[in-house]
């Protein structure tokens, strides 16, 4: 049973001014002393804003890890790529999302999460760069529920 707690959510307008005019009159609200910071998606998904970029996933190469066409990937270029990270690589002039697989026997390979896409051995690539690490994926679940087997 998943437990979900509900919090008040911040409007994306960065702040709510308490006074909309420069003429400040009236009594302060008794709730002022109890105001807490609002929640923001940025706080959850972005740890290093300056090095974080967004990208749109196209195609079905990640479907086995439940990432689909149209999802938005949060990419942090300051994250050090590690074994089993989902990375954005530049391969032969395109951005690809792959699972980085580092293994003593098999070397470094780039895996897709879809049996139709074979693993890539990076020694065999001429033009390859890891561009960044995917840290979060934003998915429109409401539009997605038709794909589920329920």
């Amino acid at each position, binding site marked *: 049973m998943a437990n979900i707690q509900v919090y008040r959510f911040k409007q994306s307008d960065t702040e709510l001014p308490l006074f909309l*005019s*420069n003429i400040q009159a009236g009594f302060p609200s008794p709730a002022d002393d109890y105001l807490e910071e609002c929640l923001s998606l940025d706080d959850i998904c972005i740890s290093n804003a*300056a*090095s974080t970029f967004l990208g749109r996933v*196209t195609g079905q190469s990640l479907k086995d890890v439940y990432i689909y066409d149209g999802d*938005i990937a949060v990419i942090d270029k300051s994250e050090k790529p590690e074994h089993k990270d989902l990375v954005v690589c530049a391969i032969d*002039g*395109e*951005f690809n999302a792959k699972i980085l697989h580092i293994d003593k026997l098999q070397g470094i390979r780039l895996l897709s999460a879809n049996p139709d896409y074979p693993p890539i051995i990076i020694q065999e690539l001429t*033009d390859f760069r890891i561009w960044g690490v995917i840290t979060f994926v934003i998915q429109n679940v409401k539009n997605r529920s038709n794909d589920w087997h329920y």
Partner: protein
Amino acid sequence: MIGIIDCNNFYASCERNFDPSINGLPVVVFSNNDGAIIARSEEAKALGITMAIPIFEVKKLMQKHNIIGYSSNYTLYGDMSARIKSIIRDFFHDVEDYSIDESFVSCKGFKYRDLFTYVKDARDKISHWSGVPVSIGIGATKTLAKVANRIAKKKYRDVGVYIIDTEEKRLDALRNTDVTDVWGVGHRIGKRLNSVGVFNAYDLSMVDEDWAKRQFSVVLQRTVYELQGLSCIPLELVQPAKQNIASQKSFGIYQTEFEPISEALANYTARVAEKLRKQKFVAGGLTVWLGTNNFSKTDAQYFPEISTVCDVPTDYTPYLIKRAVEGLKAIYRKGYLYKRVGVMLTDLRNNTDGTQNLFLADTRNKEIEIIKKVDRINRLNGRDTVRSAQQGFAREWKMKQEHLSPKYTTRLQDIITIK
């Protein structure tokens, strides 16, 4: 010790960061109106594309070598610049932002650290995290840091760091730097220096300082001291408070009629008003100017300017546009070939400064509400989704930007696609 951090081929590197298909290919970026070349990748430099060359002169060369050209995408470059400057502050405490792609940093207090190791690590991280490669030069003065930066770029490109930390290195660096390449000298003064036998930075460091001041300027005297290792140009850590915000652009084609010019002006005013609100300022006044093409030897020339005061300091776009267009009406004359129009908001104050006209407080509150909503809609749906009617839709004055890349970092529909 002072360092300068400088992005390699900044605009071209920004384009390349978001488009892996142009990796290793020659890339150039065009100036406003796609007129001249203002940035070149290393490959384009090697093919003989020179800085600031008009595009029609290199069209053939570009076709022959498949050189890829982009219109300048200042939205992208500005955002990338802000990111890089923010990352720099992760590694250096005292930073002076010198230009869109250069920052001076203080290396004070690094005495007990291995300076090179620290700076090299910072350089690698700034480059990787942003995706734009940077070079760092370090010396006892800003001018020496600039000299070191040039050496880092030219000789140690892969390392990306060069430090002038011994007398031997200083002399060697100066002897290998042409006097015209010294920060603040330039070609005109360089030529004059050449005529009196000063050819490289070492020669310049050896001239009599008073002679430099008498014959040239106090600026050159400072340069001489700085090359010797005496710092006279300190780091400016405090950005002076903004006195005004301006926007001026050239038209893609000459404009003669009032309507399109006022439409362009309304758009520039909308832009500066957005900036004003972002910085939480209100403007007490504004200045509008018009201009013909001052490079033309045959056109009649006319450069009028007019200033006005706002009833109440404001950040409300419709009001500012109204006043700007009133100003334009007063200075516009028929019969000229206009090349540019500009607007500047003046007398800026914080939007909490209470120079409020008590009787206008009600309107002001409504305006704040309206413009907040407009900003929000435009932020979510793209610039000018909601606009003042005076901004129009014809845009015949618009800059030529035929090769504009996507706004990868600021527009949701423009983000990179990942297969």
